C-alpha cells in the first residue's frame, strides 16, 4: 500500500518560499525575545521583581507579553501569508 504522501493534492503553492522565509524571520525574532526572558530569569531573578507597569513587575509584564506577542505575531503571519497566497497563486 502507499503509506506516505499528502492526503490530498493542493496544487503548487507559489507562495511557499515566501511563507517559509517569513516564518523563519518571525521565529528568530521570537527566539531572541524568549531567550532574553530565560536569561533574565536565570541570571537576574531579582531584576524580574522590578515594578515596571501599573504596579506589575517585570516578570509578569514580560511573561504576559510573551504570550500576547505570540498571538499578535501569529495573526500578522497569517495575514501576510494569506495575502501572498492570494497574489502569487492566482
Amino acid at each position, binding site marked *: 500500500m502507499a503509506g506516505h504522501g499528502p492526503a490530498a493534492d493542493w496544487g503548487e503553492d507559489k507562495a511557499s518560499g515566501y511563507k517559509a522565509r517569513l516564518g523563519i524571520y518571525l521565529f528568530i525574532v521570537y527566539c531572541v525575545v524568549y531567550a532574553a526572558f530565560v536569561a533574565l530569569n*536565570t541570571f537576574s531573578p531579582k531584576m524580574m521583581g522590578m515594578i515596571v507597569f501599573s504596579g506589575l513587575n517585570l516578570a509578569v509584564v514580560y511573561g504576559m507579553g510573551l*504570550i500576547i506577542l505570540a498571538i499578535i505575531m501569529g495573526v500578522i503571519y497569517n495575514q501576510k501569508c494569506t495575502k501572498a497566497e492570494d497574489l502569487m497563486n492566482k
Partner: protein
Amino acid sequence: MIYDASIFAVIIFVMFVIAVLGISKYFASKTKSSAGYYAAGGQIHWAVNGIAFAGDYLSAASFLGICGMIAFFGYDGFLYSIGYLAGWVVALFVVAEPLKKAGKYTFTDALDNRFNSKAIQLMAAISTLIVSVCYLIPQMVGAGALITPLLGMPHYVGVILVGGIVIFIVATAGMASTTYVQFIKGGLLIFFSTVLTISLFVNGYKLKPDANYHEFITLSVASENGQVTSVADGYTIASQNSDLGVVKLNSPESKELWKLQLNGKVLVKAHSTSGIRLDAIIKNGQVTSVSDGYTIVGLDSKTGLVELLAPPVQTWWQLQDEGKTLIEAPSVVVLENGDELYNGAPKSERKFYQVGHMSKIIVDGKEVEETGPLGPFAFLETITNSEVILFTKNVFHDGADKVTVWKHTPTKGERIMRPGLKFHLDENSTGWDKTNFISLMLALFLGTSALPHILIRYYTVPSPKDARKSTIVAIASIGFFYVLTLFMGLGAMTHGVLDLGSSNMSAPLLAKFFGIFLFSCISAIAFATVLGTVSGLIVAASGAVAHDLISNFAGVNLSDANQVKAGKISAVVVGLIAIVLGILFKGMNVSFLVGLAFAVAASANLPAIMMVIFWKKTSAIGVASSIFVGMTTALAIILTSPSMYAQYGLDPLTAPSPLGQPGIISIPLAFITLVVFSLLFPSKDAKPMPN
C-alpha cells in the same frame, strides 16, 4: 484529604460521559475508511480544529499541574505556562504547513516523505510510542487522582474508567470523535476557567478566606537555645527537631463518649461518622477493658454510652516569635507499621484541613482586612505588595516514624511574583541548577511541535492554509487560558483551598470555594480533559503501530478496512497498557512525567522535523540516527537523574547525572548526529519537500 462525593458532580460527569459516547457512536457510523479513522477524513473546519488543539494541549498537566504549581510556588509555575505557549510559535512558523503538505496520517509519514526509508519508519514509530506512553502515564494517574473527590471512588477505578471510555471512543470512531470531544472540552474548559477567574476578581482578597477557614491555635512556651522546655494549656512535649524548629506535643487529656455495637463487641464514637471502632471486652454485661490505649472513666447502662479517656493525640507544632510561641503545623506521619496519621489522627477522622491565606493585605500603602472586588491588574498588584503564608514542606524521621510537616512561611508577595521559589536561581544556586532551568525552558519551547498527538491534528483539516489558521486559533485560545492560570493559581494560594497532600487538586478546590455548581463543572471538565488527551494519545500510538509499523515498516499489505481494524485493535492494546501503567504509577508526580515526555519529544523528533524541512542534504540514515540518539540520550539522562533516584528510593546525591532536564544536551546532540550521519551517508534518491 477526604473528599465528599457530590451528587451534582456525579450527574454532570455522567451527562458528559453520555454525550461523549453519543458523539463517538454517531461518528462510528460515518467512519469506514482509514482516512476517516486516522485523520477524520481531513475535513474538520480550521476553527473547530484550533479549539480541539487547545483541548489536546490543555491536558491534566496544564490545567491541574500548572494551577497547582502556581498555588504552591507562585511565579515559577507560571513559567511553565509561558514555555508551553511559546512552543506553539515553533509549531506555527516552522512546522505547521510543511508537515501538513508532507504527511498523510502520522508524523512519520511527513518525516519519511522524502526518503521512503524503513529505518525512519521504525525509529519514528518507536519514538511516537515512547513519547505517547510517557504522556499517557500522567494523564491516567491524573484521572485516578480526580475520580476520588468527584465520585468518591478509589484511584484504580478512575484509571479503569478513563481507560474503558477512551478505548470505546477511539476504537469506535478514531480521530473524528476525538476531535469533537476535544473541541467541546477545550471550549468548556476555557469558558469555566474564565468564570472562575471573574469570580476571583469579584471576591478579591480577605485575610480570613471564609468563615469555615481553619483557626490555627498558638500556645505560649518557654524555650532555651531553640529547645522548648515547657508548654502552656496542658500540652506536654513528646519530641522535637530543633534544626527545623518543630515540636511534637501530646494533647491534654480528653474524655469522649462511645457506644456499644455488634452485640457489645465493639465501641463506636458517639455523634461521629468517622467509623473508628475499638474492641471491647465485656464481663457480666459491663465493659471491662478497651483497646488502643483508651481507659474507661464511666458507664451509663441506660443509654449504653461509655465514657473513655482518650490517649493523647500527638501533633506537630512550629516554633515562632523568637521561641515564645508555637503554632500548629499540618503534618502527615507514616508510622513504622505503615499506618498514616493526618494531624495526629487516622485519615477517616478528617483532621487534615485545607490551607492558604494572606497574613497582610496592603492596598494603597495601608493594611486592610479585605479588598473588595478587584480588576485583573489590581489583583496582581495587591498580592505583589502584600504578604502570603506559604506552607513549606519538610520531611524528616522522628524515631521510626517518617514525618512530613508543612511550616508556615510568611512570604512577601514581591518574592512570590518573581522566579526562584521552585527553581533554584538565586545567588546560592549552582551552575547545575541554572543549567537545569535553561534545559527545561528549552524543552518546553521545542517540545510542543514534536508531540505526536499534536502533530497528527494537522492531518484533520482540508489544507495547509487551514492547518496554519487552526494553529493561530490554538495559540489565541491556549494563550488566553495560560493567562488565566496565573490568576487561578494565585487565587488557590490565598483562598484557603489548598490540599497540602495534592497540589493537583488546587484548581478544582478553588472552584468549590465558589460553590458546588462551579466545582462540579470544573471537575467534570478536568476529567474530560484527561479523557480527550488520552484519546488523542491513543490514536497517535495506534497509528504508529498499525500504520507505521505493520503497514509501512513490515510491509503487510492491508486493505483499507483492515487498516482501520488494525488501528482499532492497536488502540485497545495501547489503552490496556495505559490502564496498567496508570495504576502502577499511582502517586508519581504528574508534571514530572509530562516534562519527561516534552524532553524526549523535543530531543527525538524536533531536530529531525526541522532538518527534513529546511536542509536539503538531510539523509534517511541521518534522520533515523538523530531520532535514536535524541531519544536514548534524553531517556538515559532522565533515568539517571537525581529526581528519578529519589523516585527509586535511592540517595539523589549518588545519581550519575547531575541534570534532571536533558534537553540542553540531548537536543543539540540530536542535531549534530543528524548533520554528521547525513554527510557520511547521503540519500542519493531523496525527494525535495512538497511545495
